[in-house]
């Protein structure tokens, strides 16, 4: 919609811009890694839920 203008970039769009538009794979990789770190808690929760369900 805004194409990330007016400070509406999210991590994923910024990642895409850095990696594929600016061709800066280093910054792109770093942003992707931040994305991964952000989902680690979610990962823990989903594993916890799955184990609880299996035990039931």
């Amino acid at each position: 919609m805004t194409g990330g203008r007016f400070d509406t970039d999210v991590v994923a769009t910024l990642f895409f811009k850095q990696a594929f538009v600016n061709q800066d794979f280093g910054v792109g990789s770093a942003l992707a890694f931040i994305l991964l770190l952000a989902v680690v808690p979610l990962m823990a929760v989903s594993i916890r839920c799955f184990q609880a369900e299996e035990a039931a």
Partner: protein
Amino acid sequence: MAASARAAPAPLHVVVIGIAVLWSVPTVVLLISSFRPPEAITSTGWWQAAGEALTLSNLPRGARAAGMGRAFANSLLITVPATLLVLLVAAAAAYAFAWMPFPGRNALLLLVVALLVVPLQMTLIPVLRIYGHITIDVEMPMLGRNLWGVSSYTGIWAAHTAYGLPFAVFLLRNFFAALPRDLIEAAQLDGASDWTIFWRVIIPLSVPALAALAIFQFLWTWNDLLVALVLLGDPQLAPMTLQITNLVSSFGASCELLTAAAFISMAVPLVVFFAFQRFSVQGILVGATKGWEPAMARVLFDHVIKCFDGVLAVNDLEIEVIDGEFLVLVGPSGCGKSTTLRMLAGLDDVNEGAIYIADRRVDDVAAKDRDIAMVIQT
């Protein structure tokens, strides 16, 4: 289920209808816009379309616009194999996770659960770098420039399959694991290999889950823009989503072509969805409620008589086993217990009387057509 849905309070209906209308607005606007002449689109809003002259020329023009036909074929060439690959690999993996004990199984399963939440953007740069190194540059007739790697159908099939697998394996494993153990054990006792059990027992029972998964995977792959944008450099291989994006940037103001092309792109998932809908809804429900209802039915013996060469084995048996009832026949040796079961299974004929399973008379039906099994324990 149906009763509780009917009894749902009015506010719930209002909310559900409201959400449905809200979600339909973009689609309806797209449809309206695809029939409006270019001047009308640029000068007035879609809500003013009532009463103005509509045109049918956008759709054919949109379809002919820069490589749309090729893009449509590309979308199918990418989506159909990617969907089939996910189904095949995920079903095999899910069977192993559910019914084949092997070392490290639980750890691997937890890994799959963990991968469910990893965003696919994570993988784009590494995959692109790897593909860049292993691209096999061979000209393929109809299939583009490369056999493998960047800008090849095989490369994007592999990527879409890998992205779809964690959810697919997770969904199917839960479905397979909920199937009754007795079924698998019965097949194993009959000497069936894992391969046979998988194809002859698991797959036929899992059609709802497989159909639901096929729809999800088809929609995701068909609607994907990001993966195609990154991994398909060759414009000859661009799917609809990519081609429509290019249309926006190259035509700029030609909104009417854009809407028409987008509507053509939407048509295919709609057809797929409605074709598989009845399986899909069932599949989602089955996945949500763990468990599986075994087929039960009333069994009725109506004045059944059986003689073996003048020896009366069963004399005027009249017994009804109601649906879901668990019944034990106890008696001394030679009193006709086995004969009764053999007559029910169709292994022995009946001299007089009738046998019913559910409301169907079965004593003149061949054993294999009675949908009943007999397990002998010695």
